[in-house]
């Protein structure tokens, strides 16, 4: 396959970048994970993962605008690349395939 293996956290971040589209940057992703998944993540961990994904060519970035809320600092907006999308899709399908292998649960009344 030659494809890079993605870790669970990496996959999560990649998905978030794809989902948040134009609003995908460090703090937003962290917030989103915290509110939706009720999961505490550290900002630095998100950043490091983003940089790593960018290195792998799964996402790309560009500087966005700054807001007052950020003390005037600009955001780095990430967008998913087609390679990233492909990887994501492939992983999803692989998982679905595996799901199908699990025998259907039979609920017996007795």
């Amino acid at each position: 396959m030659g494809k890079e293996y993605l870790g669970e956290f990496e996959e999560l971040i990649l998905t978030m970048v794809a989902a948040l589209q134009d609003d995908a940057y460090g703090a937003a992703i962290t917030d989103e994970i915290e509110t939706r998944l009720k999961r505490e993540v550290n900002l630095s961990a998100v950043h490091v993962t983003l940089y790593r994904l960018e290195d792998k060519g799964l996402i790309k970035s560009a500087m966005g605008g700054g807001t007052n809320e950020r003390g005037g600092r600009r955001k780095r907006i990430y967008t998913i690349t087609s390679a990233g999308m492909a990887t994501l899709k492939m992983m999803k399908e692989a998982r679905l395939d595996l799901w199908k292998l699990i025998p259907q649960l039979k609920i017996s009344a007795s």
Partner: protein
Amino acid sequence: MKEEIPGWLLKFLSLICPNNMLEEIEGDLIQKYNNDIRKVGERKAVRKLVWNALRFFRPGIILRNRFSTGLNFIDMLSNYWKIMVRNLMKHKVYSGINVFGLTIGITFAVMIGVFCWGELQVNKQLKDVDRLYIVERDMKDTSGMGFFAPTPIGRTLKEQYPTLVENYFRFYDRNIKVSKEDKHFVIQGIIGDSTFLTMFGLPVLYGDAKTALSKHHSVVITEKMAKQFFNRVDVVGETLTLTNGLREKKEVVITAVLEDLQRNSVTDLVGINAQYIVPLQDVRDFLLTDMQTLEDDFIITYLKLRPKAQLNDVQRAMSRWIKNNGSPQQKRVANLNLKSLKDYYLITQNGAAQKMIFILSGIACFILLLAIINFVNISIASATVRLKEIGVRKVIGGIRKQIIFQFLSESLIITVMAGLFAIGCYELLRPAFEGLLNVSLPVFWKLDITFWKWFVVALVLVGVMAGSYPAFFMSSYRVIESLKGKLKSAKEGLLFSKGLMTVQFLVAIFIFCCSIVITQQVSYFLEKDLGYDKSFVLTVSSVPRIWTDEGIRQMNLAKHEFLTSSHVESVSLSWEIPNGNNGDDVSLYRYGSDEDKSILMPLLKSDEDFDDVYKIKINEGEFFSEQNGSWKPNRIVINEATSKLLNLHVGDQARMRGTDTVFTVTGVVGDFNFFSLRDPVKPVVIMHPKDLHVYRFFSFRLKPGNLAESVEDVEKHWKKLFPEDPFDYAFMDDRLASLYKSEQQLKKASTLATGVMLMIVLIGVLGLVALNVAKRTKEIGVRKVLGASMLSIMTLFSKEYIRMILVAFALAVPSALYFVDSWLSGFAYRVTLHWWMFTLPGLGLLFVALGVVIIQSYKAASVNPVKSLRTE
């Protein structure tokens, strides 16, 4: 929304985050912070912020930093390297001179350094050395100091002043015959308290340090001794047999084995180098006195003070004890002093070790200085080439700092190279050096890390000094001047270089003079008429010590047996031999006069044949003559000095302080130098061993002839008489020579230093002249064309060297004279200074240096001017 993150956090972030990521990270942090303020309140938010920010200190962020330094730093360095290598290769001779000179200099300095380092490490092996003290006494009626303290003082101090004194250790030293089966050796040992191992924290290989000496008939030995007897080290539980003065054999059990001891002032006090210790409670077995007698006497005592104890308090306590509890003998002590073991070795014997270290490190510095001067001189002489390079560098945009860096690193690399060579040379020459100076030097790699640190520091220092001239001086030139490749004024550089050269000559002549005087003094020591004849005298130290009437009788029989040998002229039994070590001092006074008029003098013990063996002149009376069996007790022989001081003559009676015995003078001998020639002849009194029942040495006067054969013959008799005792012998000449060990060392070191210095100086002269000649090839050609003779050209070159050597000579002689004079003032007998001792070095240097100059300039002067004028 105005909440900002604290400044120090920003600083921290900018330190760890790569520049291109800093902004978004800061932004995200601030945004999160503001969110948190809304959600959880400010105080918690700040905490979260700090935590979040600190978490950015992780490899995923830090490793994204690009560590870049300047544009072409590496390229520049490689360029420096290339230029250096090219320069070294182009001028092989001069670079060779530089590296060679530095290598010799550093090698010698390293050897001296290692030696001095070893001297400074003495006693460092002892635990808590800064709290250890040796007790020294001042006697009321004697002038000298001694390291003997009243026996009970250590114990009482510990019992009565537990807040001052933590522990004590006392010992006697004894040479005892140790045997195991058929192996017999007379080995130096000590009889001491059981606190030995724990108090000094000596490294125990086998056995228990705490209990090793608490039982009777136990012994603790060193690794070396274990190997000597058993060829292995784990020998705890084995037994050894010690033979005491009554020829009684005592079986002792080895309870612990020590790692070989480094030099220290306990087991190696005054160089005894003891190899084993037996407990003091067995003192009866070896000293033939009991503990009770000892209590009233003196013993070598060490104290370990409590960390906060005051020296004064301890000393006051000791004086109080002497006054109240001391025996009559002990009350004669005027004062007890505590000497710290930390620097005891260095300052003892009037600081002999310290002086040696001082002189040697001075020599090492001088040698290094000479090597550095060579380096600097050659860089001055070849400055033209490098000046052009500097000019070009500056034109291209090099700044001064870079040029300084370049030249310093160049000289540093050469120094480090020389340093590495020097380590190699050190390892190669170590055995020779050890043999020559009679010291042991460790392998370089095994030296302490601190020594290595100093070594590196010294190397850097030498490198910086050597490279400082081109680095700081030449780099200060303006571009145009340096491009022209001329020193600002030819004189400036030359004057500096000449000054340095003169310093070299000065140092070389100075050391040369000193070395000659030291050599003369040492040979004077060995050749001076001592008042007795030391040649053909063989001394044996391993005489079985049976210190009783019976023993004396046995030894007398042995003497007769030895006399049957055709190689032996006469034999004498004595406690002392004239090697400077005597056992006791007594205060002698004329019978009937006041006790206060007594004079303290060494008491020698020898039998009636001592004067025959040593050919001592007898002025009056006889030397204990025992003819017709008319032996009488309590006879003494005195020397001329005593006779004059106390007005004693044959037949007169005298007494010694502390005893009631009346002694009769039977003879007066001429003065002879029993002690080293550092001191004037002392008054001495001699008693017969029969009165005291003690002896240590046999001295044989051998008949002239084949000495090796004679020794063999004596040994044959020895083996027959004393089959169980080893035959440890030495010729009197050698024993005497070892009396002047430190002077001998100094002599050899200074001779060696002189050789090394002359070599470095001459190499320097060689290089400089060669450079000069090469630079002035054209000038020589022009001069020749205009009619200059060979001679005039050669004088042209030699003139300046003659001038420099003369100046150096004029400065060196007074300083050498001053130094030598103060050195000689330490000796009672000194060699008379002659003018040749000072002119010889000057003239010698002059001739050798001129030889080098003339040979070099002859080559240049004899070249056909057509050729030399054509060179470019």
